[in-house]
């Protein structure tokens, strides 16, 4: 009964969490140089359970519980990568990466260039970010723009389970340090994921919905909201294109510009703080790249510039929402809301 016909891969609907977990497992199986390291990823099975079951399957050498010493264990992963291991580091959240950032930015990102190409640092640093969980100011940040600014790093931020799988696979197989940004609010999101090996191309954005009136540019959790808003606005007769950046560094300026060249209007939707955030670069890129095709100013919908408060009432006010995005899209297109 076994046939060996080449078929299109089977597709399952799984969570973002499961996509990550399965991908880690597949890569651990595939390449013995891959190992996982981080706080509470083994016995505890991960703060967010991304590594559930992996210690049991692969043992403590492949799934390394580290003490609370982000600088130490991230740096140790760098060293291991220098001799050809392929560590996949979990930093519990992006907020704690500040303690390790000297190792990431002054060391992992620079070694290859600084040492004249003699060494590569094939490692992945996975970490979730994002607010909206009432984790308060120190635990709710979106500092992706910091990493996106740094030559020598690659920075990806998947928005779907399928991309989580394909970009993580690509990141692990890439010979450079890749910052792999997850988002707390995406872990339980479901999506269709093709079985088998899927390797994304780092550095490429995707048009995840086509439209003709306006381009929403977003990434990670924001893309989900952008798609939701685009669908809602369709009912009002607005045709919205959604660009999912996927890779923040390198940034796929061509895809962004091509989209806006077509639609003539752009709104950036981002979870980080407005000033000097990811959206600033997107807006600047559009302003420079397709100046003559732009029918209205590029607007940004971003977080209010405050340390995010714990109280739900304040957190809601501070974070960018679907409602704010709809409103701004209408403003840019100069259309009144349907019901008013």
């Amino acid at each position, binding site marked *: 009964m076994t046939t060996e016909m080449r078929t299109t891969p089977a597709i399952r609907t799984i969570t973002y969490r499961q996509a990550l977990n399965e991908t880690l497992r597949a890569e651990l199986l595939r390449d013995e140089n891959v190992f996982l390291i981080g706080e509470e990823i083994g016995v*505890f099975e991960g703060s967010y359970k991304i590594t559930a079951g992996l210690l049991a399957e692969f043992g403590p050498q492949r799934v390394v*519980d580290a003490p609370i*010493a982000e600088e130490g264990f991230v740096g140790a992963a760098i060293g291991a990568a220098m001799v050809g291991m392929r560590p996949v580091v979990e930093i519990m959240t992006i907020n704690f990466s500040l303690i390790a950032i000297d190792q990431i930015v002054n060391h992992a990102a620079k070694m290859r260039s600084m040492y004249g190409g003699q060494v590569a640092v094939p490692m992945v640093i996975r970490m979730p970010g994002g607010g909206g969980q009432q984790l*308060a100011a*120190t*635990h709710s940040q979106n500092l992706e723009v910091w990493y996106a600014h740094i030559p020598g790093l690659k920075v990806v931020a998947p928005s779907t389970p399928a991309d989580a799988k394909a970009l993580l696979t690509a990141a692990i197989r890439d010979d450079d340090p890749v910052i792999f940004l997850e988002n707390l609010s995406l872990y339980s999101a479901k999506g269709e994921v093709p079985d088998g090996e899927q390797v994304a191309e780092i550095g490429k954005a995707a048009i995840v919905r086509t439209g003709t009136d306006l381009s929403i540019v977003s990434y990670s959790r924001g893309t989900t909201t952008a798609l939701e808003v685009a669908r809602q606005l369709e009912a009002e007769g607005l045709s919205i294109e959604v660009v999912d950046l996927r890779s923040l560094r390198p940034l796929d300026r061509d895809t962004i510009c091509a989209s806006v060249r077509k639609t003539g209007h752009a709104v950036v939707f981002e979870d980080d703080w407005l*000033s000097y955030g990811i959206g600033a670069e997107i807006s600047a890129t559009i302003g420079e790249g397709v100046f003559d095709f732009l029918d209205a100013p590029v607007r940004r919908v971003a977080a209010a510039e405050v340390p995010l*408060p714990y109280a739900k009432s304040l957190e809601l006010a501070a974070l960018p929402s679907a409602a704010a995005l709809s409103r701004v899209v209408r403003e840019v297109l100069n259309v009144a809301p349907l019901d008013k």
Partner: protein
Amino acid sequence: MATNTRPRTADSVEQAEPQAAEPREQRGEPAGQLRSYYERMSLIRAFELRSSEMYARAKIGGYCHLNLGEEATVVGLMEALQARDYLFVGYRDHGYALMRGLSPERVMAELFGKTTGVSGGRGGSMHMYDTETRLFGGYGIVGGQIPPATGVALALTYRQKPGAEAEAVMCLLGDGTTNIGAFHESLNLAGLWNLPIVFVVVNNKLGMGTTVERSSAEPELHKRGASYRIPGVRVDGDDVIAVRDAARAALDQARTLRRPVLLEVMCYRLRGHSVVDPARYRSADDTAVAQKADPVPAFRATLIAAGVLDEAAADAIDAEADARVTAAVEFAEKSPDPSPDDLFAYVYATPVANAPSALPGDPVTDAL
């Protein structure tokens, strides 16, 4: 400068039953004092159990770490700390806030994210701060409190002379936290500059799911003072009197000799790391050991055996604690949520031109 008042939580109960009426003493301790310690431990226990319940009922959000099992440690340390002293804690800070004299109402209101909360609802469970009682913050970043605590101790050396009446700093941290760089850097500064600070390692034997032996190459954590010529002391954290005395001695040394101390307090975390952690990684044996050591029933039993309390009196104390927490929940429920109009209220202390105040989606300039 605040004078050395006793914590409010203790005061109110003690006034109801004046000390003179107490017949017995234990280990040289007046019975009233022992009872008061039990009252405090009972209050923390009741408060934390209710916090857990309120979290399950979604009244509390975010992360929520409890002092369950650490009550004797919390009460002993806070009894030793004077009102004029400064306190820095981690994120496991509810009990400390209560023992520092903050009402259960304000602590619960903070957990509920209300304006009446200790930090106005902006900090939540991990970030209790109260200037008046010199509770200088709960800190959510592991080890984040250690450098600022050291800095307050540094500042004290600018403003006062050492002596029995001098102020000192107590900085709490967990066992897992001793492995972070900030621990090393700060203890070195404190040792080098002779700062009046006591670093207290609350060794509950676990950092999340990781045992001390799996995280610290020298698991006898008090020995880590040696790298800075800071004396290390270990004490049984289930013994409220022992904790108090060790902390007093350490604070005395800090304030009179300006020599820091590293005090390691051995206790158990009774439940998971935070309210949502079922702690499945913990063996039945370990759990049994922790439960057996549980200082609240143990202390209750000791006091009953010694005749300081009888069952009825102990029950009354527990009921009173419970009632206070119930009142706190009611207070928190009724308190107002912070208004979005105040979102930007505390970003800066000194107002400056062009400080951002845009809400999501607002245009970047007014004058389009």
